[in-house]
């Protein structure tokens, strides 16, 4: 069991929070509110589309300093369309997602739609959602 589940750790630990420039006339805004289980450290958020969600670079990223009460990330000027979110809570603020000795995450992680994977990160089919106009997501991360 642990051997297979360790597949979860690597893709999440490799979350790259780089921003790509918007290409067309962007019109939509996405507001993502996190409900963390701990009030320390930071929640690291990455936004993807269908092309990038599985293994690609994030379109946008945000670091929420939950220790100072920052729980909401806003992504403005998005093309209307389908997106997916991956996030983890760096509870101890050391800049990475810590794992146990068998390689399993010990800090909370989450996906849009509060999706849970099936022995791995939640796939695009579970995490995708539509952004159109002013869109919100509330994600429990604990």
């Amino acid at each position, binding site marked *: *069991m*642990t*051997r*297979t*589940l*360790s597949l*979860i750790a690597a893709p999440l630990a490799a979350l790259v929070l780089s921003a790509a420039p918007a290409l067309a006339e962007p019109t939509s805004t996405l507001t993502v509110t996190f409900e963390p289980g701990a009030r320390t450290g930071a929640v690291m958020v990455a936004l993807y589309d269908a092309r990038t969600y599985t293994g690609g670079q994030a379109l946008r990223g945000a670091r929420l300093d939950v220790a100072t009460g920052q729980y909401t990330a806003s992504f403005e000027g998005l093309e209307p369309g389908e997106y997916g979110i991956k996030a983890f809570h760096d509870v101890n603020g050391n800049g990475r997602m*810590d794992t*146990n*000795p*068998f390689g*399993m*995450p*010990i800090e909370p*992680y989450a996906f849009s739609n509060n999706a*849970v*994977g*099936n*022995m791995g990160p*939640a796939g695009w089919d579970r995490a995708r959602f539509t952004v159109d106009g002013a869109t919100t997501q509330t994600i429990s991360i604990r």
Partner: protein
Amino acid sequence: MTPSRRHFLMGAAALSAAVATPERVRAAIARDVAAPWALATADLDADIAPRAMRLVQGRAPVGLEGTLFRNGPGKFRRPGGSATHWFDGDGLMRSFSLSGGGVTLAARFADTPKRRHETALDAVVTPGFGTVGDARGRIGSNDDASSANTAVMVTGEKVWALWEGGSPLRMDAATLATEDFVTLRPDLKGMPFQAHPRFAPDGTVWNVGTNGDQVIVWHMQASGALIDARMLRLPRASYLHDFTATDRHLIFVLQPWVFDRAGMPFSTQFAWQPELGTQVLVVDKADLTQTRLYELPTFSFFHLGDGWAEPDGTIRFDVAAGADVTFAIEGARALVAGRGPVPGEPCILKLVTLHPDGRAELASSGVTAEFPKGDPRRAGLARSLTVHVAGERGSRPLPDGLAIQDWNTGRSHAFSFGDTQIMEEAVFVPRPGTTAERDAWLVAPSINLAEGVTELHVFDVAAVEDGPVATWRADVALPAGFHGAWRG
């Protein structure tokens, strides 16, 4: 086409191959009729509220007060998909409370993320030891796949439902209400905590969790507080359900059922390679880098007895040894099917002796056995008695009685209920104020197939052959459990 002799003969051959011989009809009937032992893997649809059991034989032993907690699978089947292997049913925690001569029975399902998700879907979708699962699984961590169904450890006012691949699940001992998964230290969250902790003479508790050839060694206070956790690497990535210990050593039996490839269900990861033999790794508790490896003839196993070290350095422990892994792969599926033959030979109780000169020996008692247990006052210390369930045979795949093996005399003291009962694991409960190994009771439930209900029995260790000194009967049948723990 003109009919020809050749065509006719071919047709007749095909027909005769399809004809139902009396043997085939009888075999088909046997496959379709629920087995007489099918109650052992029946489904329980809801928790069992506390209820009195009725004394039906003998009298309650004076001084026997406490609770037997037992865990085991209680539900396998759902309309949209089912657990197909005995090890994958939802954990059902049971308590048999003995007080003032009466017994109260209660049982509650472990309220796991797996059970909640599968209840909502009305389908078993989570892969397990032998259950495939499907794409609807929601598994973000090992604990999401836990059925919390294997064993129980008592920690003060709480009981921990133990599984093999994840964290203990804390439940309230009085109400059996599920609380939460236990994290023994934040950096070890989700590390596996297996189902067979070993109790040391100094009052502390040892346990392990494995991932391939990696092992975490847990050392705890009896309260469940962590003393330390260390990592160890095994010489072989065997399937390891149980380890054992002496007062000074941890003992890992490495059967030749070895990690072969990733995948689910879990049991498909291992390949049976009998040509490798079975190895035993002995590790110094004080320094996990101090190890010694012994070689034994091939056997398979799930369960070991407590070990002990003698003054000259000889180490001994018992094992319910199997010939191969047929039961684990096929037999445990047939048990859930509830009909047809159950493949796999019963295990035999054997004594492993590890000599100081590096030789290892395996001595057979010749007695069919599972779930070996010893006197808790002697855990990790020299002892002569091992209690175990007995009576499994090909035509009757589950045990029908208890036996005590006396390793000093070589004698087995057995009691059989016969085919009308399925015997469950017994715990060894010392008689208050005594020290001798025989001054103890065995407390164990059974399923009375004739009455269709669960019973609780107390045996006197000194006279197991005489049968139970007291039997209480419930008004309900619980499916067979796996492992229990006593809280006095």
